[in-house]
């Protein structure tokens, strides 16, 4: 099993049925998996902040979901998170693929990649990083459960 298989299963087991995304090479296999399964409603976005609005509407209508994106998308989503998801207490999981860390080749990825976790901290959004295969299932389950008590949680494959 890959981390993708495990996260896919945990999303399904926890009924996070609406998946909003802007594709990224790291999460691409996961997007392919959810698109192939009619359990999921998959919403391709033009910009990540749209997903904050869409998942808010879905939650108002009784559906849970996940926002998948590269870390750049966190920058594009900040006011949506700060002005909608946080004050209205709208829970969902955010799955963020990391750029801008050790070995990054693209100078335009560095600043956002480094700012992301402090930014989440300043917004009060918890984040958990998937580093080892044997932790993926438990961390994903835990992040989802915490998202629905704390309202928002991000997970980093």
């Amino acid at each position, binding site marked *: 099993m890959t981390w993708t298989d495990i996260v896919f299963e945990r999303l399904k087991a926890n009924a996070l049925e*609406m998946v909003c995304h802007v594709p990224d090479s790291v999460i691409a296999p996961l997007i392919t998996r959810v698109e192939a399964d009619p359990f999921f*409603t998959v*919403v*391709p*976005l*033009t*910009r990540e*902040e*749209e*997903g*904050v*609005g*869409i*998942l*808010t*509407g*879905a*939650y*108002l*209508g*009784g*559906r849970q979901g996940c926002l998948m994106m590269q870390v750049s998308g966190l920058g594009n989503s900040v*006011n*949506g998170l700060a*002005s*909608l998801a946080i*004050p*209205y*207490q*709208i829970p969902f999981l955010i799955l963020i693929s990391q750029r801008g860390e050790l070995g990054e080749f693209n100078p335009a990825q560095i600043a956002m990649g480094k700012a992301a976790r402090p930014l989440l901290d300043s917004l009060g959004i918890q984040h958990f990083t998937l580093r080892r295969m044997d932790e993926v299932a438990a961390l994903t389950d835990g992040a989802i459960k915490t998202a629905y008590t704390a309202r928002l949680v991000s997970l980093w494959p």
Partner: protein
Amino acid sequence: MGRERQAIKRSGSINRLEATRHLVNRAPQALIIAGPGNAKFDLADTGDRPQHFYLWNSLGLAPSVGLGLALAQPKQQVIVLDGDGGTLMNPGALVTIARLAPLNLLHIVWDNGQYQLTGGQPTATATVTDLPAMGRGAGLQLVATVTTMNEFEIGLETWLTESGPWLVVAKIDASPAPARPPKDPVWIKLRFMQAVNKSN
């Protein structure tokens, strides 16, 4: 050359509050998402109700919230009330609505060509930008433009009965919107979610 050649176009004669009142009367069961600015103020002026969801900030996200709700509740009529400023902030919402194409979504843009709440600075629709054309370009098949209250009333009967998603650009005047909706976001949300549950 440039902006001095871009004449300010006249906005329409529709009064936003009057049109909002008519809409609420004609679609009393609809779930209504109101964008920040005067759309939500005039919705509140029609009489605050549980099936109103007011965005107090998040310019641009009202149609996105409406899309998510329409997908989650496909049997309920979902109406989005937004302005030209909000539409221009997040034109990608038109793209994503066209792509997902929920049948139960009516998206109304009150267009007066200005950021009315901040002093009436012109938006791009006052001069060069054509919102209905943007909607069609995004892939929306059902796009209407109305400039008078009579056209709005006639059109509404179609938009409420024929499957969407509809994009309606209503050219409005610049009347102010003095009413204010409740301000507690969590209370607005919980009350709205109860209304959704009751409607099922």
